[in-house]
């Protein structure tokens, strides 16, 4: 049996297929204003027997395909455990959500925390800040890492932080220092969220923001330990979904 998992996030759609306990296919694409069409495209040439959906678009897809749905928290808990069997804590920073999940020894969900409805400290926040500073998004992390010191950013609200960044730019502060400050403020927020649930090792960092090298370094520094980054951190939820039916 081929089991597919689809994670319909705010920015990207991810798909994983498993068969006989192994991942045999992984795909991802940028989400659009019409997530259903994006899902249809990503599913078009994929063969599967069961389909489980997670992410913000899960109920939309369920209404269309009558697939199974599961919350992102469960999907990430299962996916993280499959990727690393020693995993006890998951940090996921996606497009519009930040989640901290604690698992018990057997991989069962212990506790979880999510950011409130505001997108402060998420991937979207980073995108907007990069744009405000005139960086290409893919250069943002390396520019931040090039800074000798960080300019402190006090606002975590995306809108206020943008005003703060603009005011720092007009004061002549080097933009890489501002970038490092932005990364630091998000890392601090993420670690605070983790501390509310657990910081038990092994800690797995998932979601699009886990592709950001600066963020990884800062979170490790703040926690005082190494964190595990999956081969493709964006796929954890989709993999979790796919394994749910195995």
């Amino acid at each position, binding site marked *: 049996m081929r089991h597919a998992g689809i994670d319909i996030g705010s920015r990207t759609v991810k798909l994983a297929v498993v068969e006989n306990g192994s991942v045999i296919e992984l795909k991802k694409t940028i989400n659009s204003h019409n997530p259903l069409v994006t899902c249809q495209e990503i599913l078009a040439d994929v063969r599967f027997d069961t389909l489980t959906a997670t992410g913000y678009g899960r109920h939309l897809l369920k209404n269309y395909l009558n697939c199974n749905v*599961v*919350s*992102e928290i469960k999907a990430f808990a299962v996916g993280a455990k499959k990727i690393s069997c020693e995993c006890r804590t998951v940090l996921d920073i996606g497009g519009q959500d930040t989640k901290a999940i604690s698992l018990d020894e057997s991989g069962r969900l212990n506790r979880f925390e*999510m950011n*409130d*409805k505001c997108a402060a400290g998420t991937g979207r926040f980073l995108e907007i800040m990069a744009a405000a500073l005139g960086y290409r998004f893919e250069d943002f992390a390396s520019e931040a890492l090039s800074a000798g010191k960080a300019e402190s950013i006090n606002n975590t609200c995306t809108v206020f932080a943008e005003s703060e960044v603009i005011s720092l730019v007009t004061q002549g502060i080097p933009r890489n220092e501002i970038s490092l400050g932005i990364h630091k403020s998000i890392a601090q927020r993420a670690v605070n969220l983790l501390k509310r649930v657990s910081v038990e090792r092994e800690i797995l960092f998932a979601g699009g923001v886990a592709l950001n090298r600066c963020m990884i370094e800062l979170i490790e520094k703040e926690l005082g330990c190494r964190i595990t980054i999956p081969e493709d951190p964006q796929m954890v939820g989709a993999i979790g979904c796919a394994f749910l039916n195995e």
Partner: protein
Amino acid sequence: MTIKTEPIFNDSFTGEPPAKRAVGYIQGKREKGKHVAGIYCGYAPVELLYAMDIVPAVLCAFANATIEEAESVLPANLCPLIKSSYGFISKDTCPFYSFSEAVIGETTCDGKKKMFELISEKKPMHVMDLPQLPDEAEALNNWTVMITKLQSFLEKTFDVKATTEDIRKAITENNKKNDLVTKILEFGALPSPVIGWTEMHDVIFLATPARGNDIYTTLEGIIAKLEDRVKQGYVHGAKGSPRILVTGCPTAGDAAKVFKIIEETGGVIVAIDSCVGLKPFAEKVEEGTADPIRSIAERYLKIPCACMTPNNGRIAELDKLIDKYKPDAVIDIVLQACHGYNIESYKTGEHVMKKRNLPFLKVVTDYSQGDTGQIKTRIEALLESI
């Protein structure tokens, strides 16, 4: 097989929002020339109002629609309950406010206090200074004085009198009403609950303003219907649905989106531990005492609102409810910018998770529908963890 049941209220308000029935009740009273006083909170000592034949009207506070208007005066980062309340008043769209000849408020939080100052420019407004260290010896004396002062305010404003005997009678009458309401809400405690949150709200919204003598028959009729449901084997929601106890800020109207999500996700709300829930009906005023005002003060000071410190009563009450209603999880609803409930949520959560070994979820929200997706994800995850 689904069992058809008669709604607990079978009247012209069936299917309408629960406040409509209360509007009907108070309108009837007004037509008979009765006085009406607006109240906001579970700390308003309604027994005293009944003793003077004044009808308490719970003022509107749960609609998102009035917030925009309120924000032209009030700051945006204020609790939605206060913003909504004030919006209703400045737009004059709350029927309960229109019926009210005066408004009674308590100093439960800074936002309310300041809103009361604004209301006082529009209608006679009486503010009671609520002691917030309930365990201190002075608290009971001070609160007794405040209730006595309320009595003087009502006597002057409405030109009415209440004798000690009138107050004693009102206490007995209200105790009986509270017992009946509690009994109805306890049908949620059954292994297969036969009442859901919308019907709980129907009862609560009517029983808060209505005096005992007016609704005993109705309440007893509801109890009989619920007993019938038990006999028929009716279950509210699907059999074996995860049982949810909700606690925290008062939740109704647009904030009840959280309740709707709980049900959509497959949970069933068995108990509502809030001021639009079990709280106002839980404790009884001691009957037949020499100083009934003091007895009223004693009962109201026991309401475990997060404005109190220490608020040990909250955990004690929650423990009792967990024992009785046997929830599978507890959801703490905090209205945005309600610092008391927000901070207290940490203690509440630690107690629920560590001492009672139950999954716990805190939801901070307002009256907008913008966060329903996020709330749904969290509640689904909570139910998956049961």
